[in-house]
């Protein structure tokens, strides 16, 4: 009988928002089968995350705490998840497709000789088995993944499922246990960490993204300053096309597209971006797309809901001003 285990990713005691999105979808699937929904929280002093998992839909939370588990490392975390799969026997194991979640999902699936679907954009059940949808060929195609293994593993991309509402009145069981791998067996040591500057909205978590492309070529510094001001005004993150990154106008960390970040915000404003296929693959699932481009024939207009044909150096500051008026 189908049952689900969801890995809840945390960093310094705060859960990754995408983990709640995955848990919300898992709740839906668990309700279809009538089996309790289990989650696993791994770390050190992370009971609050386990409590939160219950408010977001888990019935049982396996809380695995140990000083050696404070930071994510693949070997001890995988050992915990694999141990749980063996002792509690879930058939479906779900992860968020973050840097850590992708890693962990793959290692767990490989060790358990389980089929895996990475970076899924939809999940469903068919006769008690997981059926996953994912994109392939750089977003140019979709495929449905069916599993032939008793355990089915998937990682799920951020923002494909809505975040569930927390219900503080929900009750559930927390089951505590400790690390599975002895600390002496760990092959990896984290010796430094440099957090991304605070106050900056991460591209993958952003509800709004304003991106710049080759259209800034005339004066890249001013162009991206304008784009940043619009993003700041409407509470968004700043992105860029590959062309802008390759031309050295802005850092690769900003790149949206198949070879950059895959994003799915509520609003995506593309400024001076022509809409190369690799860019479209990374952003065309955005809810509302706005294109600002001098070239009325640019492919970006074929995916946009709204567009202004014009020079971003004129349109972006004007739009920033108008948004400031409305949000004041």
């Amino acid at each position, binding site marked *: 009988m189908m049952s689900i285990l969801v890995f809840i990713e945390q*960093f310094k005691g705060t859960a*990754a928002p995408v983990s709640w999105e995955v848990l919300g979808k898992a709740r839906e699937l668990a309700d279809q089968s009538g089996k309790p929904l289990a989650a696993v929280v791994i770390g050190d002093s992370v009971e609050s995350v386990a409590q939160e998992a219950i408010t977001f839909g888990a019935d049982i939370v396996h809380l695995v705490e140990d000083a050696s588990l404070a930071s994510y490392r*693949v070997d001890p975390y995988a050992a915990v998840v694999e141990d749980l799969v063996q002792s509690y026997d879930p058939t479906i194991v779900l992860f968020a497709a*973050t*840097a850590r979640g*992708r*890693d962990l999902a*793959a*290692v767990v*699936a*490989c060790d358990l*000789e389980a*089929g*895996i679907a*990475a*970076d899924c954009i939809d999940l469903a059940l068919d006769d008690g088995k997981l059926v996953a949808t994912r994109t*392939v*060929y*750089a*977003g*140019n*195609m*979709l495929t*449905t993944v*069916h*599993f*032939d293994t008793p355990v*089915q593993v998937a990682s799920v991309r951020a923002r494909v499922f809505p975040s569930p509402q927390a219900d503080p009145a929900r009750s559930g069981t927390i089951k505590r246990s400790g690390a599975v791998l002895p600390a002496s067996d760990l*092959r*990896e*040591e*984290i*010796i*430094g*960490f*440099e957090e*991304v500057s605070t106050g900056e909205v991460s591209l993958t978590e952003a509800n*709004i993204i304003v991106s710049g492309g080759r259209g800034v070529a005339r004066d890249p510094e001013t162009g991206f300053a304008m784009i940043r001001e619009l993003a700041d005004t409407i509470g968004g993150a700043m992105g860029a096309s590959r062309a802008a990154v390759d031309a050295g106008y802005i850092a*690769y*960390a900003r790149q949206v597209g*198949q*070879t950059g970040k895959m994003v799915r915000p509520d609003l995506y404003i593309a400024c001076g971006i022509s809409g190369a*296929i*690799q860019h479209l693959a990374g952003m065309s699932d955005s809810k509302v797309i706005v*294109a600002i481009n001098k070239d*009325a024939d640019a492919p970006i*207009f074929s*995916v946009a*809901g*709204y*567009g*202004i*044909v*014009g020079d971003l150096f*004129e349109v972006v500051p*004007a*739009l920033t001003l*108008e948004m400031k008026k*409305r*949000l004041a």
Partner: protein
Amino acid sequence: MNFVVCVKQTPDTAEMSKISVAEVSSGDIKATLVLNPWDEYAVEEALLLQDRFGGEVTVMTTGPETATDALKDAIARGIKNALLLDDPAFSGTDAWGTAAILSAAIRKNGDFDVVLTGKMSVDGNSGLVAPGLARKLGATLLTQVTRILDIADGMITVERQLEEGREIVTATLPAVVSVGKEINEPRYPSFMGIRKAARADIPVWSAQDLASIDPLIGTNGYVPGARWTDLRKPPARASEVVLVDEGSVDASAAKLADLLMAEKVV
């Protein structure tokens, strides 16, 4: 120091939009086949590591005879040793089967310290082979690596890019490292390199060659655990673009701002 780079031959990303469902289903993709763009960073990093720490680099791939071109691309960039893993029995494997084939070949090839791969392939988009290789080789897994800081005394120190920031990790060798785009600027194949690659005689190992390392290879031991079905083009976005033109930039910007407020996305 012995470095191995595992690469894949993939369709040219620029031509991906032209690839049809029928072509993928039949296995006959009518697009230019190239070295997987993410693997260019792995090839470059292997060459840089060889410069820094000495030793040998071997590039390998599993694929049909045509995949030799991806190996030749790596040779043209400066890698001396290449290996093609080709056998009809290898077709239809999933990421774990591919990892098993590559890991058996890496073991048979000799000692290894660092195995490099690109972050993912641009066709399958899974990024599973590096984790699979690490587990099957019993090596340390390091993904999302954006800098290799040092290799010394049986340890490798790297910088990894995570959502919240950059982590510096030191880990035991041997290690499987999958690299991100930030790590380097891949060189182009040189003219001399291309000539050398054209003349290169690349050994081919079959299932039989690997059976002494892993007897499951080429048998039914590696049955895919997941199957792709219903390959399809994503549904086109239904909406027609509404072009805002109120005569002046300011008036158009005001109108667009109103539309976005009405959409409740700001």
